[in-house]
């Protein structure tokens, strides 16, 4: 005989054997990995702790942050230009942008970085001056393309191609009607871009850009092949001396992880703020009053 009324009885979810098995296996695997990581002396956690805040590691971290910010900033600017070029109705301009994007997205960044580092093999001298005159100065390309310059150029040019596609995607998310409304008011193309298209494209551009920043942060590790003493290279320089390879890779990895987590937080906030559903009502929007003000036509 039931003691509670039928309508008040709780509903019990079905738990399958697979669910229990999943719990048990995950916990066992987790404990196993944890024990192994903590007890295996070869991880040398003491060394990790010792080098985690080592001066050259921190300097490498700073350089990594600088490369990320600088190449993202420059890449976004260049990407904006490319996106505008790609949406141009002048065919050669949009084709040029298209070729750029195809080339830079279609080849590995690593290859591009090494290419820019060795650009002096193609153009030994770079001359800045007025064409068809003798005015100008020649610069030794090899001297100009120091590892860090090559790194910055390589990362920026590559990022620009990706940002161009993100920005262009944002532009095309703005409805045709918006452009027609701006045109019918007689807006110039520049005003239309600044006041109508870009503000409305931001909701889809900003979250994607946040993802790119996180990707770029880890991507900078590639420039270690050019001998730029960023985070990974700094770690490599130390273990080349001490042979403590794994502990130093752990040091670098932990920093990458910490920074990625730090960047993920504002990224997810931005994503919330600009998500399609919420962007329909801008933040500073006035609360809707249900009673209609005077003068409403009936």
């Amino acid at each position, binding site marked *: 005989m039931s003691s509670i009324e039928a309508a008040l009885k709780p509903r019990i979810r079905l738990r399958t054997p697979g669910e229990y098995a999943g719990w048990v296996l995950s916990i066992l695997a987790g404990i196993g990995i944890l024990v192994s990581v903590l007890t295996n002396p070869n991880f040398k956690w003491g060394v990790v702790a010792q080098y985690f805040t080592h001066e050259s590691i921190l300097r490498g971290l700073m350089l990594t942050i600088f490369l990320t910010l600088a190449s993202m900033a420059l890449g976004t600017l260049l990407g904006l230009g490319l996106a505008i070029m790609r949406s141009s109705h002048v065919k050669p301009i949009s084709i040029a942008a298209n070729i750029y994007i195809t080339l830079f997205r279609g080849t590995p960044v690593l290859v591009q970085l090494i290419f820019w580092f060795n650009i002096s093999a193609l153009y030994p001298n770079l001359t800045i001056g007025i064409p068809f005159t003798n005015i100008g100065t020649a610069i030794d390309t090899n001297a100009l393309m120091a590892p860090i310059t090559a790194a910055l150029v390589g990362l920026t040019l590559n990022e620009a191609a990706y940002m161009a596609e993100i920005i262009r995607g944002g532009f095309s998310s703005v*409805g045709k*009607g*918006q452009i*027609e*409304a*701006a*045109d*019918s*008011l*007689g*807006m*110039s*193309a520049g*005003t239309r871009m600044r*006041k*109508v298209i870009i*503000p*409305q494209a931001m909701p889809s551009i900003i979250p994607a850009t946040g993802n790119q920043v996180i990707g770029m942060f880890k991507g900078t590790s590639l420039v270690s092949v050019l001998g730029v003493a960023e985070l990974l290279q700094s770690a490599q320089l130390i273990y080349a001396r001490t042979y403590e390879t794994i502990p130093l890779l752990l040091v670098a990895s932990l920093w990458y992880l910490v920074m990625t987590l730090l960047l993920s937080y504002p990224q997810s906030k931005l994503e919330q703020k600009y998500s399609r559903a919420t962007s*329909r*009502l*801008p933040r500073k*929007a*006035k609360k*809707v009053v249900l009673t209609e*003000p*005077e*003068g*409403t*036509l*009936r």
Partner: protein
Amino acid sequence: MSKDGTILAQKIRKSFGPKTVLKDINLDIASGEICCIIGPSGSGKSTILRCINGLETVDSGVLKVNGEDFGYYETAHAYHAHSPKKLAEQRTRVGMVFQSFNLFPNMTALENVMSGPVLVKGADKKQAAKRAQELLASVGLAGFGDYYPAQLSGGQQQRVAIARSLAMDPEIMLFDEPTSALDPEKVGEVLAVMKDLAKKGMTMVVVTHEMGFAREVADSLIFMDDGYVVERGDAREVLSNPQEPRTQAFLQQVL
């Protein structure tokens, strides 16, 4: 030269790829005339409206808006396209109201109405805001200035859109099915604003399915089908006593 408000179209042709949408359009709309364009979908009625505003360019024919060649200037052998600046200037004199309102969602109602004067004509912001408040009041939306389009009903958005066009002080207002996207109960409030406007002597060309509005407000009525103007005349006369069989068939379906 500012005040004219006439539209003249002769032998307008317009194709989209292989499809000829306007085949031989002749129009003559006087200053202050209220002209309704009706017809089945695909008849080219929206396209001719969009040509008058420069959203589409005509392939051939003469198109004079406000007394001057629109979008092009004539030489002995050809029509040459105007510079974007000159085209924009001509467009500011023709207001356009869209079926889907097309308010700028990133701006408040007031900013929408101010956008033309401030961003195009470079008007003083304070004065433009004052004018925009007056315009919002004139379309029955006093006090709605701080609302964003997403917070307004369709009828309210359309009235803001009308105010936005009026802020440019156009001589001609074009309406492309202004009430088609509205709930039936919101249609009246938009039509009321348009009637109000008609009384003030604005030249208006209205593509519409609202036969009641055409009968009550319009001076002239144009029936279009398949890229041609099939019939045109006094609005009430055409509606009650259509001459062409095609017009009769259409009106029988919709009335």
